[in-house]
């Protein structure tokens, strides 16, 4: 692919970086001088994000103006130069970057605007916008990096911002700990990521994507090891089994942060990375299979947990984990374009869901859906936009989620797996169950929040609550609703008469596999099945949570037990605590610190003192003052010396 130098790429990242720095300075000034700078701060932050979006748009224009497949590149400076290590701080812009940046900066701008209203009363308003800009900068760097090392700067940068924003209300110990948990879980993934980078450096000597793409023959041997290592990194950042546990806790952060970082953008970085490195992952069927299985399993597992959550943000968090599972399923079966397509549509509808939830939380100061109900009449804009997102995530056409999700499902069934021939069917069925469960838990959420009366026994705050909908909050909701409704048309498959534009747009980055197992004629009926499954889920859920007036009291014991296990999220946090964290802490405290350091080493060191003292006391007895003794010592000493001289000679 021809490379075209473009000196303006850096502008995309410069705006949010400048915004972050200005807001950081404003924050310190505001702390010292106690002045109100909120308007300036919000203005700077939104302008930074908007300008960045405009820069992306104009770069897209430049990019598409060249008709051939090209890569726009800008080399900033040589970063780490220590032979044989050579890493340049360079940015690149191709079709994958374009898709990612477009929705990242677009959604980010909307969320910046929304945050102005949501965070209006917060005392750390300016700091918040500084972090938000810093996040946008890191995310853009992650997507723009032309090599894995620059990607890794962004990767760690978004992790840092995620930590800072989850722990934003740090006075609450639990929230501060949630931030720490997120960072450390991510770090475990990053350790894998780093090992992957080292393996790549060892095998190919470079980290630049465009160079690696042409070095496939040297990567063949180590592709599995590299792929697995990098994928471990992805499971951390994108909250997949086994490292997903930080994401539900991350909901401690402000809701717009959950929308932006923990739903729309940062958590999809793992998917982006896998798609970016698709030429490598394709070399190893083992890794691809692992990714597909992990994705499908995470999707199903998280959907099950989401069924029994009552915190509106927790439901959405598990839903995000589940949807990320779909994306990895897509990437694992080679449907990289479909994966990215779902990343994009998911960004719209999940951001919308979170922002809607944020509007409710902002009004009610309440996150428990059992204490909600009937909000449809009181917050109509929130309710109807939320419902568009609900239909999108359930996969009802023509809303966006349907097209992207169905493309993944179709690929999961149709791609051949050379390691496990029956795997596609298993993956497909598992994904279908997930479709059903998704419809169930999302409908439960919608039914309990916007319809009905709310569960008895939960305090309603109606009397204190003013159900106002701030324009800065509902305008972003409406725009996102439009996107959630229509973004799917970017990838309407051929069988429905569409052009699947997004797949064509991305072909330059991806090497597509041909679906061979199932004939394309099957595509339409399969689509029908998935719609039917989703509709069944919705109907089932509506019946249970809305229409059924008197729930039956007869419950099997097994069912109740199962319910308790799901309510407790399969006790995964507790298992990790007991199996990993506690042993590690105990080891550090008992073995490393107390036994090795304090007892063994220090014990030895401290015993030297008495040892020397003991012997010097003994030896001092030789000084008797008796001349005969001293003559004896002289004689003995002389004898030894004479002996030594004789031996030497």
């Amino acid at each position: 692919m021809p490379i075209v130098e473009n000196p303006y790429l850096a502008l995309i990242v410069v705006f949010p970086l400048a915004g972050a720095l200005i807001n950081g300075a404003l924050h310190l000034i505001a702390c010292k001088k106690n002045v109100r700078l909120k308007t300036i701060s919000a203005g700077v932050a939104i302008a930074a994000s908007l300008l960045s979006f405009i820069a992306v748009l104009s770069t897209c224009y430049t990019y598409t103006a060249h008709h051939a497949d090209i890569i726009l590149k800008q080399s900033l400076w040589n970063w780490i130069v220590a032979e044989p290590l050579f890493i340049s701080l360079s940015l690149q812009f191709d079709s994958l970057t374009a898709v990612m940046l477009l929705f990242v900066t677009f959604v980010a701008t909307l969320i910046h605007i929304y945050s102005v209203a949501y965070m209006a009363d917060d005392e750390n308003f300016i700091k918040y916008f500084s972090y938000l800009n810093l996040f946008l900068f890191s995310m853009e760097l992650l997507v723009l990096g032309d090599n894995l090392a620059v990607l890794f700067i962004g990767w760690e940068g978004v992790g840092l911002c995620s930590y800072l924003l989850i722990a934003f209300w740090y006075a609450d110990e639990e929230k501060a700990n949630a931030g720490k948990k997120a960072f450390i879980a991510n770090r475990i993934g990053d350790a894998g990521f780093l090992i992957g980078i080292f393996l790549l450096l060892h095998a190919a000597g470079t980290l630049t994507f465009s160079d690696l793409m042409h070095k496939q023959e040297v990567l063949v041997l180590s592709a599995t090891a590299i792929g697995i290592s990098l994928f471990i990194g992805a499971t951390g950042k994108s909250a997949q089994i086994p490292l997903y546990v930080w994401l539900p806790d991350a909901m401690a952060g402000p809701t717009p942060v959950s929308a932006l970082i923990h739903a729309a953008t940062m958590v999809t970085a793992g998917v982006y990375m896998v798609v970016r490195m698709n030429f490598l992952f394709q070399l190893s069927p083992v890794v691809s299979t692992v990714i597909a299985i992990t994705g499908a399993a995470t999707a199903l597992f998280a959907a099950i947990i989401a069924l029994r959550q009552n915190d509106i943000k927790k439901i959405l968090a598990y839903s995000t984990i589940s949807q990320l599972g779909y994306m990895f399923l897509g990437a694992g079966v080679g449907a990289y374009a479909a994966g990215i397509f779902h990343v994009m549509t998911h960004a719209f509808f999940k951001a919308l869901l979170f922002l809607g939830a944020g509007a409710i939380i902002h009004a009610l100061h309440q996150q428990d859906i059992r204490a909600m109900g009937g909000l449809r009449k009181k917050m109509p804009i929130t309710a109807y936009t939320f419902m568009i997102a609900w239909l999108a995530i359930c996969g009802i056409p023509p809303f966006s989620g349907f097209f992207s999700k169905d493309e993944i499902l179709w690929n999961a069934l149709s791609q051949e797996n050379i390691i496990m021939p029956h795997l596609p069917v298993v993956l497909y069925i598992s994904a279908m169950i997930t479709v059903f469960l998704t419809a169930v838990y999302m409908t439960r959420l919608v039914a309990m929040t916007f319809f009905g009366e709310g569960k008895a026994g939960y305090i309603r705050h109606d009397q204190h609550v003013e159900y106002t909908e701030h324009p800065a909050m509902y305008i972003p909701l409406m725009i996102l609703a439009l996107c959630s409704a229509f973004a799917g048309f970017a990838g309407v498959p051929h069988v429905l008469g569409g052009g699947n534009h997004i797949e064509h747009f991305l072909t330059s980055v991806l090497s597509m596999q041909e679906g061979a197992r199932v004939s394309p004629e099957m595509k339409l009926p399969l689509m029908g099945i998935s719609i039917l499954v989703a509709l069944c889920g919705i109907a089932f859920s509506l019946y249970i949570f809305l229409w059924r007036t008197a729930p039956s009291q007869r419950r099997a014991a097994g069912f109740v037990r199962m319910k308790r296990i799901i309510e407790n999220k399969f006790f995964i946090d507790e298992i990790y605590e007991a199996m990993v964290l506690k042993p590690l802490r105990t080891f550090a405290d008992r073995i490393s610190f107390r036994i090795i350091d304090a007892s063994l080493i220090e014990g030895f060191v401290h015993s030297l003192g008495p040892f020397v003292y003991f012997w010097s006391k003994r030896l001092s007895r030789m000084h008797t003052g008796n001349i005969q003794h001293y003559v004896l010592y002289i004689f003995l000493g002389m004898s030894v010396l004479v002996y030594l001289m004789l031996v030497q000679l």
Partner: protein
Amino acid sequence: MISFLIAFPLLGIVMLLFFNGKKQLAVISFLITLIECIAAVWLYWNIDFDAARFQLIESFKLMEIFPFYYTVGIDALSFWMILLTAFLFPLVIAGGYTGITKNHKGYYIALLILESSIIGTFASLNLFLFYIFWELMLLPMFFIIGVWGGADRIYATIKFVLFTMFGSLLMFIAIIYIGIHYQTFDYEQLASAQFSMREQYWLFLAFALAFLIKVPIVPLHTWLPDAHTEAPAGGSVILAGVLLKLGAYGLIRVNLPLFPVASQHFSYAMCAIAVVGIIHGALTAAVQTDMKRLIAYSSVSHMGYIVLGIFTFTVSGLQGSILHMVNHALSTGALFFLVGMMYDQTHTRQISDYGGIAKIVPVFALFFMIATLSSIGLPGLNGFIGEFTILAASFGVYMELTIIAVGGIVLGAWYMLKLYGSVFYGEMKNVHFQDFRDARGVQIAVIIPMIALMFYLGLYPKAFLNSIKNSAQYHLEHIHKQF
């Protein structure tokens, strides 16, 4: 020029004798170290980084019957170490000023002797001279910990001196042996001498023991937490920033070029104990309850990376190690400064006494966060470059050890964020902290240069890495000839 750098702080002591006021003494010694720092910076334009040879050599004979020369000179490696020393001292005087409550004159005299002897050690090109400066360093440090330290200072300082003396005793024997058998202490002559295998093994071990105690590497590290914890803030910064580096410097300067066969023979063992140090230091740091003790153990972990980089015998690994020596001085130095500044107000180092103070001291919180991030190796800051370069180099040599060492990165995030979270986040537990004053004037001026360098080395390490490339190659030359 080099002799001026060594002698100037000692001459400065004469100046100090004429003053008595607390402030006057601080200002005078600050000016002396500042001039010293400017002089060290001036060297930058006077040495040739492309040449691997020693430069600005000054040499004359000190004794007739004994091959004892005063020979000093620098190359890129010692230049950066001298600059680092000269850079830290003015900051130590400015930043540690409030922590000193008695016998001010003695404190500054001790600091100036210390600076002189450290620079002397880095510049010595004669093993005997090296040894004299090496031992001379102990004296002021003994008093700095023992007089101006915390509650347990006597125990800590005696432990520090005994550990170090034990190591240097063997080094002294080794130096005498070399002097007797080769009739010279001159470094450059010895570098081309051929030691027999047997000699190399024993001499390597004798020198390595002295240096590894100084680094320190597990299991020779237990003096460090005590010394760090009890030393005044300035002492801790010098200890972490420069004195530990002398151990690593010695390994690079003496062990690698003089005993190449032995170095290769012991390389796996050295890397293995380095990795043990990384993990053990990190795990132990995670369970500390005293802030300074935690940072001290984190030093053990970081120094493990440095030793690992040295014994990969790759140019890039050595470059990474030298860079990481500077990185560690900056991040750990800044952390010790910040803890010291907070201690001056709160009089406690117990982590559990703190909590939720980010709200009342936002500038401290910001500085501490940046130093923390530098320490845990966030890309964009200096710590990452060092760790990345070292690990990338060692991955090609000892893959399994490197994979374990990467685990240290996770543990590093764990203990540092635990420290940061417990001190700055959470609820304000201690009501006495209400009138805790945020960083001001001098304190900000001390931290800002360190933070600026963290960003500079994190974003543009190329200049530094390039400048030490030839020096790194020089120190590995003999080893590669063996292959």
